C-alpha cells in the first residue's frame, strides 16, 4: 500500500525541528531513518499529517565520550556505530547487539533513537538501553527532560515522548576495563525481531541482565544481579527458574508463551555462563 499524504519539512537544526513539532503538535511525527515509521505509514497504521525529517541535523549525529559516559545523538545510524571500533570498546554490549538489528539494508538508515522511541518489545537497542540503565534526553518547546530508560519504556510500542518533544540524546555508561558482555537471541530469520533476546553485562561482582521479547518492555532480572550466587550451575538453574516463574510471556503466531519462557531460560543460561566463566 501507499502512505497517506503528508506535509514534509527538513529542518537544519534541533531548534527548528522542535519549533515545527511544537507548531503541529499531535499531527506531526519526527522521521529519521524511517525503518519503523515508514512500514506503518505504508500500511496506513500511521497517518501523520506532518513529517519533520531530522535525519540531516548534524547535532543529532554521532557519539562522543564524556567522562565515564557515552552520549549518542538520537539520529545516529545503526551502521555508523556498527563499523566503529572505538564505539565497540566504549559500549561493547550495544556493539554486540547491533549485529542482530535488522539487515544491512535497514541498519544503513535505521537510527538508535528511532528504535528506542518505537519501543518494540523485542527490539535489541531498547533491551541494551534497559540493561545498561540508559538515560534518555528529550527536548521540547518548554525545555529539556531527562529520564531513566525504565521510565521511558512504558509498554509495547509505547514510550514517554509527548507531542512536540524530540528524543535528542541517549546516555550510556562506558564499560570499564574487565567488563564482560553477552548477547544472545533467537529469531525466525537472522535480523528479524527476536522471539526472545537476552543481554548481560558483568562489571566485577555486579551483574545486569535483561530479557527482551518476553514481556511488553524489557524485563530486568533483579534476581540475577550478584555474581557469587550464580557461579554454581545448579544454583544458576534455580535462580533462572525463580526469575521466570512470575513471568506472563507474550504469545503470538511465531511462538507460544511457554516456548518463549523456555527460550528465555536457555538464553539466560548461555549468557550467564559467558559472562561468569
Amino acid at each position: 500500500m501507499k502512505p497517506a499524504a503528508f506535509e514534509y519539512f527538513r529542518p537544519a537544526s534541533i531548534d527548528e525541528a522542535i519549533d515545527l513539532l511544537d507548531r503541529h503538535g499531535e499531527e506531526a511525527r519526527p522521521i529519521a531513518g524511517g525503518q519503523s515509521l515508514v512500514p506503518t505509514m505504508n500500511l496506513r497504521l500511521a497517518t501523520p499529517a506532518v513529517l519533520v525529517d531530522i535525519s540531516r541535523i548534524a547535532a543529532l549525529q554521532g557519539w562522543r565520550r564524556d567522562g565515564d559516559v557515552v552520549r549518542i545523538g538520537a539520529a545516529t545510524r545503526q551502521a555508523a556505530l556498527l563499523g566503529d571500533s572505538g564505539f565497540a570498546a566504549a559500549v561493547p554490549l550495544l556493539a554486540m547487539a547491533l549485529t542482530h538489528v535488522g539487515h544491512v539494508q535497514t541498519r544503513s538508515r535505521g537510527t538508535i533513537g528511532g528504535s528506542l522511541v518505537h519501543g518494540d518489545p523485542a527490539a535489541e537497542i531498547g533491551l541494551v538501553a534497559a540493561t545498561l540503565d540508559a538515560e534518555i534526553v528529550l527536548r521540547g518547546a518548554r525545555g529539556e527532560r531527562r529520564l531513566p530508560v525504565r521510565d521511558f519504556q512504558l509498554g509495547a510500542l509505547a514510550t514517554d515522548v509527548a507531542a512536540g518533544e524530540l528524543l535528542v540524546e541517549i546516555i550510556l555508561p562506558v564499560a570499564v576495563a574487565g567488563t564482560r558482555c553477552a548477547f544472545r537471541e533467537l529469531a525466525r530469520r537472522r535480523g528479524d525481531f527476536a522471539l526472545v533476546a537476552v543481554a548481560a553485562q558483568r562489571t566485577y561482582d555486579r551483574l545486569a541482565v535483561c530479557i527482551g521479547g518476553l514481556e511488553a518492555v524489557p524485563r530486568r532480572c533483579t534476581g540475577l544481579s550478584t555474581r557469587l550466587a550464580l557461579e554454581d550451575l545448579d544454583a544458576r538453574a534455580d535462580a533462572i527458574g525463580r526469575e521466570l516463574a512470575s513471568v506472563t510471556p507474550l504469545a503470538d503466531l511465531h511462538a507460544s508463551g511457554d516456548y518463549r519462557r523456555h527460550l528465555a531460560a536457555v538464553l539466560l543460561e548461555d549468557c550467564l555462563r559467558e559472562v561468569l566463566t
Partner: protein
Amino acid sequence: MKLACTVNGEPVAADVPPRLLLSDFLRHELKLTGTNVGCEMGVCGACTVIVDGEPVRSCLMFAVQADGSTVRTIESLAPDGRLAPLQDAFHRHHALQCGFCTPGILMTLIALADRGALPRTEPEAREVLSGNICRCTGYQAIVDAILEGTR
C-alpha cells in the same frame, strides 16, 4: 516538492508529492523498472538500491529524502549490455529463477563490493542474504555465486 538528485550518473530534477516512495519514483517517474517492489513494508528486500553508497530499501524512503543524494539502481550494472562480474556469476551458477529478488540482492552486494566488504565465507554470505527473500532458489546457488564473485 522539488527534488534534485543523481540517478545512475544522470542528474534528475522533479517535482513530487512528499508521500511518493523512492521505489515508485524510480519505477513510475524515471521508468527504471529494474527495481522491483515486493512487500512494500521493508521485509523482502526486492526494492534495494544504493543511496550515497549505502544499500537501502527504496520502499522505506520517500523520494524527497533522496534530495541531493546519489542513487544507483540495477540498470547501472550493465550499461553497455555486458554483464557485471557478479551478474555473470549469478548467471553461470543459476542463482536466479524468477529473478524478482535478484536486483535487490545484486545492489546489496554491489554496495558491499564498492567498500571491499563482500562476504568471503558461506556464513557471511548467508548473513548478508538475510535481508533479501528469495522464494525460488533455496539460496544455495546464490551463495555459490557470491563466493565465486569474491574469489
